[in-house]
């Protein structure tokens, strides 16, 4: 397993995909977590909407930077990490490199696990970088607005980071499985994004109107991610928070659903790679 990990870690380090995906995600967090709300804040009437302005500004200051960053994960973060997951397994089909990957010694299970593990390390690095970028942005907002620099508790920051990684790994694992199922990048991305951004959202929205759909929502990855972030105390969209955040299920249930997706993604990818002929 150590050899497989060393190989996949080197491949991951040299590839462009983690940089591109990570960079994109940091830009998105800063733009949609901070930039857009700040523009809304700046354009609100300071007299009639004073209370809304104050609430909005609170989310953009250093004391809330960690939760605001975490609030970006349920919808777009999930989609981005799914893309990363697809890029962990899918391109090996286009390159035709699976035969080489699987004939060096490490077994098929080890190679798949090593790939996803290397992806998980990238996810941690991305989460830390996105958090750091959020912190920096919030300091800039505080300085511009002449607000005091109040720092969040270290434990709260760690919890936000943990939630971000937990959510990301579940999506990564799902993406990796899709890459194997569809033997490539294109179809896997298409199906994955249509499912997460389209179908899951539609179902989740419908469940708000049709109570019969609520059990279905409880097993969807997006709502589970949103519920875990809500458990951190991040407000939902209707309360002025981020898209996709909401208390659809309790924190522990959300954790269980995310874990189940992680395990299922790994299992499907591994079983398929083990069973198929590699040509």
């Amino acid at each position, binding site marked *: 397993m150590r050899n497989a990990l060393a190989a996949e870690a080197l*491949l991951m380090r040299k590839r462009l995909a983690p940089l591109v995906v990570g960079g994109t995600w940091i830009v998105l967090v800063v733009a949609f977590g901070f930039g857009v709300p700040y523009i809304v804040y700046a354009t609100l009437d300071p007299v009639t909407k004073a209370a809304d302005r104050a609430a909005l500004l609170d989310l953009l200051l250093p004391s809330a930077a960690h939760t605001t960053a975490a609030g970006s994960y349920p919808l777009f973060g999930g989609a981005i990490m799914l893309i990363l997951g697809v890029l962990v397994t899918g391109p090996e089909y286009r390159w*035709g490199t699976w035969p080489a990957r699987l004939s060096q010694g490490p077994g098929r299970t080890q190679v798949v696990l090593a790939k996803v593990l290397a992806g998980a390390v990238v996810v941690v690095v991305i989460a830390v970088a996105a958090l750091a970028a959020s912190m920096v942005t919030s300091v800039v907002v505080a300085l511009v607005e002449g607000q005091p620099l109040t720092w969040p508790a270290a434990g709260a920051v760690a919890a936000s980071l943990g939630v971000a990684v937990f959510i990301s790994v579940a999506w990564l694992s799902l993406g990796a499985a899709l890459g194997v199922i569809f033997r490539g990048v294109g179809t896997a991305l298409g199906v994955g994004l249509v499912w997460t951004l389209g179908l899951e959202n539609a179902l989740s929205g419908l469940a708000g109107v049709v109570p019969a759909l609520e059990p279905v929502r409880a097993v969807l990855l997006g709502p589970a991610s949103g519920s875990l972030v809500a458990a951190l105390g991040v407000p939902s969209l209707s309360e002025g928070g981020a898209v996709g955040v909401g208390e659809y299920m309790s924190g522990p249930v959300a954790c269980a659903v995310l874990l189940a997706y992680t395990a299922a993604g790994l299992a499907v990818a591994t079983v398929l790679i083990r069973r198929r002929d590699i040509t």
Partner: protein
Amino acid sequence: MTDHQDVRPGSTTAAPVVVELANVTKAFGAVQAVRGVTLRVEPGQVYGLLGPNGAGKTTLMRILLGLVRSDAGTVRVLGEPPGDPRTLRRIGALIESPAFVPHLSGRVNLQVLARARGLPDAEVDRVLRVVDLEGAADRRVTGYSLGMRQRLGVAGALLGEPSLLILDEPTNGLDPEGTAAMRSLIRDMAAHATVLLSSHLLGEIQQVCDRVVVLDKGEVVAEDSVSELLSRAGERTVVLEAQPADLTEKVLKANDAWSGATRDDSSWRLELDGAGVPALVRALVEAGVEVHEVRRERRSLEEVFFALTGDHHPVRSGT
């Protein structure tokens, strides 16, 4: 072990069989890619897999690596079932066209493979030298020519000095110079390793292999040492050039040399075994025939191949 002369020096007759297939069968859906193949590769041999497109050469090699599972039959590679992690580390393989991560350099691509085998980067530098690719090692593989890619693929197969080398059409895309270099590389490798080589370039097989199996539509049509295969197929044909034609034919008919004979102007091709030749020549001379030439025909492996596979498409013979 029967053919001692086919075993390269350096190997011992006590060493175990390197590759052993018994009645191996593999179908992809309705396509029977391999049908009941049985063969043994002894240590130190350069063993050729020869066959036209779709004969099942690549599929057999994939089976040996555990990438494709056979439907029936038994497979042993270095004494273990195929795909065994410990034996995989002792096998170097180049299957079909070499595949690499295109936007990474040749060196990084090999380093990834080396790590998976637990080998240091120094081993990557060594194999790059062996295939003479050090100069281009830090360029992206996208910019490699077909021949460079092929050499990088061979370099990958040489990582860790494997005891079994599986090379699927290794001279594919190489120019004559590269082909010659590859051939001598294969001969060098054969000093320390067993080499299993596939090709439809008959000249290549003829020049580097000790033993060859000829496959057609997934079946073994011949399996023998190269020299044996060549002599067996060319053994009985004798070419005679003599004049005058009428008289020659009369003597041939009188001497039982006529059955199966074919004539082209003043040249005849006869089916004769060794002892029949002097008697026939004496009879011809005594009858007053001028004998210009008598020679035993040596068929090239190419002709043997066509005869065995019933394939009449032109196949380029190696230079």
